[in-house]
């Protein structure tokens, strides 16, 4: 099967508030797709539901042919889906190295180990014993990314890697993306920066108010079409 993940009519709620109204998204093996959309459109909610942090009906998320909606987050990471959460969310009392080691808790075999992560982001090796939150924003993002990689996922999900970072730092981090996915890893990249998202992905989905308003190949769709989908049709 070439499809690794499929969301079918995914709905999600925060209490009584409905955040997602039936999302249809597919990710093929080895593919990088992007999710774009304004704040509150539901992108982070979508990733959380996939990661098992939000409840969802089982049949609405199909991963490697299995219905995993609503499964516990620990089971999902064990199955090979890793999330780099929005805002980094590093563990404040742990050092850089300890954060990375915790990422390997699920003990999935694969090419990502401390050594390979340090090879990807050498600055982290220099500061491995520092408290994770003592690092700069860009370095913290590297730690968060490395922490997710340590679980050797087959599907990597990144929620707004560029949040709060200077453009030059953002470029540095995204420059590492090709080597990360080189081994056949699939990825979902959520980004506010539309051009950046289009550059790093093969296909994209645009979210608007909890629904998919546009889907297509990143290189082909026009800017006007995206703007319309991003902001919603004017009446």
């Amino acid at each position, binding site marked *: 099967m070439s499809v690794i993940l499929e969301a079918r009519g995914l709905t999600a709620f925060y209490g009584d508030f409905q955040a997602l109204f039936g999302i249809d998204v597919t990710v093929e093996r080895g593919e990088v797709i992007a999710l774009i959309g304004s704040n509150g459109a539901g992108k982070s909610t979508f990733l959380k539901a996939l990661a098992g*942090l939000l409840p969802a009906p089982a049949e609405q998320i199909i991963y490697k042919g299995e219905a995993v909606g609503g499964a516990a987050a620990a089971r999902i990471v064990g199955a090979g889906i890793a999330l780099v959460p929005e805002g980094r*969310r590093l563990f404040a*009392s742990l050092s850089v190295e*300890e954060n990375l080691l915790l*990422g390997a808790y699920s003990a999935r075999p694969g090419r990502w180990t401390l050594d390979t992560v340090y090879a990807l982001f050498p600055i982290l090796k220099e500061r491995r014993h520092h408290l994770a939150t003592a690092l700069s924003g860009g370095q913290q993002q590297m730690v968060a990314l490395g922490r*997710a990689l340590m679980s050797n996922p087959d599907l990597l999900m990144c929620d707004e890697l560029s949040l709060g970072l200077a453009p030059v730092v953002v470029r540095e981090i995204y420059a590492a993306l090709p080597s990360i996915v080189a081994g056949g890893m699939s990825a979902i990249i959520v980004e506010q920066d539309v051009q950046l998202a289009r550059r790093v992905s093969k296909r994209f989905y645009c979210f608007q108010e909890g629904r998919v308003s546009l889907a297509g190949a990143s290189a082909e769709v026009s800017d006007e079409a995206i703007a319309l989908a991003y902001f919603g049709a004017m009446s």
Partner: protein
Amino acid sequence: MSSIVNILLQGVLLGALYALFAMGQSLVFGVMRLTNTAHGDFIVLLVFVLFVLTNLAHMPLWAAVPMLIGIAFCAGYALQYTVLNRVSGRDPLPSLVVTFGLSIVIQNVLQEVFSADPRALATGGFESMSISLPGGIALGLLPILTLAVTVAATLGLQWLFGRTPLGRVFRATSDDREIVQLMGVSPRRTFALAMGIAFVLIALAATLYAMRTAVSPSDGPALLLYAFEAVIIGGMGSFWGTFLGGIALGVAQQIGFYIDPGWGIWLGHVLFLALLTIRPQGLLPKTA
């Protein structure tokens, strides 16, 4: 002069017991922000379990204590997993009320089963053995053993938290119990494990406590306050801090007892309040 030294030494030895009372609470509050108002009552409960093992089951002490530790771990794990996990969250009220209710239930069940009379553990004379130091100072072997156990416990906890994978999991779960799930950690099981370990510490404290004095079902609340004071005086988030806090409390109480028996405990409380006012972060606060 020697009486000052004596007071200090006795205070340190008493304080070691308080520090041991406090270790479990320090651990639990550190990992899951849980305030367990039944903490002292669990110490008393385990004392009475020990009585049952030694008196009714006629087990010798060297067999009963490991058994007690095993029972304690399982009980703590189960309690956290089934009851307390539902109330370990941001809001302190539910955990306070539930543990308060537990405190009342434990005290009254013990009273119903064992009567309100104080009971002591038979140690075959060990509790009165002592070493004599120059200056007429006698150091009891039991208090010295208590100090040794407390130091070992502190070292053990420090090592567990700082250097082991489990310690990493504890600290991470305490930092962010939502995101730690993304690593494959179950916060519910982690909390239960922490409580299990805390109960092991409580079992050790209970054993040494019962060897030292006669215990009655209503002793719990006082022990809770000593444990809590030791944690605050020492600074939250630090096991060595809790150790020092216990020692400081023991010394303060001992000085108070020396001045007048009625004011012993009072002085401990007042020292605590004074320290809270002047240095609320405690003696050895953790910076993170």
